[in-house]
């Protein structure tokens, strides 16, 4: 237990300290969403229509941006070798890393999203579901991203490969997440979409630590 706490504490400290990733994803999310009204025009009707999709796509890309930090830096400075020798199994290590990644990347997006919903004239009925869908969906992004990060850990500047690998896996989460918000904003019941979103997340969370650890083992040996 103390080793788990040490690992999460270190991941959080590293993410929050200057020159690290947490602020980058959040800033990217803010910038993309703020730019949309300039791009598609200030018509409130149009903005309301595109708001659910834009918020979800921006959240997805912001997560993608921060993924290569999850394990690549540990691999570069030799930390990964030593982590592999620690008493903690690689599956546990990746589960904790995914959790820490979500805390520093996904959670801030969930919190800031309602404010950005305002700038996109999101329908009042959709705010609650925006927060719920992001809270349920972003852990899947971190988990699936963890698999991609581990698969590309040996590739120098593997960002492009990482994106190509991970984006298809993100699609179900994007569809169900954006649909949850869209249906809520149109006044429909979003339950079905949110349940499918939750199912996607549960599947990702269950599989990711094992898939990611398997990829790390290949990299290490």
């Amino acid at each position, binding site marked *: 237990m103390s*080793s788990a706490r040490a690992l999460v504490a270190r991941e959080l400290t590293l993410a929050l300290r200057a*020159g690290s990733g947490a602020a980058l994803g959040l800033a990217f999310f803010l910038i993309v969403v703020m730019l949309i009204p300039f791009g598609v025009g200030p018509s409130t009707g149009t903005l309301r229509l595109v708001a659910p999709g834009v918020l979800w796509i921006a959240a997805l890309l912001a997560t993608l941006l921060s993924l290569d930090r999850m394990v690549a830096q540990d691999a570069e*400075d030799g930390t990964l*070798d030593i982590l592999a*020798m620690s008493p903690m199994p690689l599956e546990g290590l990746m589960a904790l890393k995914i959790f820490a990644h979500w805390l520093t990347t996904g959670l801030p997006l969930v919190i800031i999203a309602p404010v950005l919903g305002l700038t996109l004239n999101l329908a009042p009925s959709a705010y609650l579901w925006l927060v719920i869908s992001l809270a349920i969906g972003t852990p899947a992004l971190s988990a699936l991203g963890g698999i991609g990060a581990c698969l590309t850990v040996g590739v120098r500047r593997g960002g492009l490969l990482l994106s190509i690998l991970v984006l298809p896996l993100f699609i179900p989460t994007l569809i169900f997440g954006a649909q949850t918000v869209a249906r809520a904003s149109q006044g429909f019941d979003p339950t079905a979409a949110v349940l499918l979103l939750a199912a996607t997340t549960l599947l990702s969370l269950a599989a990711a630590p094992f898939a990611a650890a398997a990829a790390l083992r290949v990299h290490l*040996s």
Partner: protein
Amino acid sequence: MTLIADTVSLKRGGQTLIADLSFACDPGKALILRGPNGVGKSTLLRALCGFVPLESGSVRLGDVSLEDQDLWLSQIAYAGHLDALKPQLTVRENVTFWAGLFGGRAEDAIEAFNLGEIANRPVFTCSAGQKRRTGLARLALSKDRPLWLLDEPTVSLDTATVARVAAFLRGHLAAGGYALIATHIDLGLQADVVELERAERSIANEEDPFLSEGFA
């Protein structure tokens, strides 16, 4: 309990690097790996960490085989070329993290490697020697792991620190530990030497008079 490597062969990039290397190491004695650059000392050490698969042969430490990956990894401590430090964190934060993961007290490790005066400095402000010292401090947290694999542990260390590291290694060996060390300098340890040679290689496994007379 003896560390035994039996006809170990290793390949790197499709080329045979080490062929049919055998050696044995008793507790309390270090095994020094020697040989020209690129001969495969680091690769051998990484193979003994389980990071590079053996082409053939076997390695055992007592009852534990290199094949039982998880059990094997719990027996070894490795200090490679990279110090496994996070530049943004201070020396103490780095050591504390490893202490949280491996057990042991961070303050003991800081004291054992004389890191007190730089403990609160971020690692990116430290010199190469100070980083190496911090990286080696992890060994002080791995006292319950019998087999230490050290890859050029004394690179960029000053003479006083080299002596300190050597004394620390002697303590580990005296407690019945094992150490495989790739190094070109004399650490003054009770040691056998394995000479690695390029291509068609031969194996020497004899007492090195230079080492055993050492400065200890």
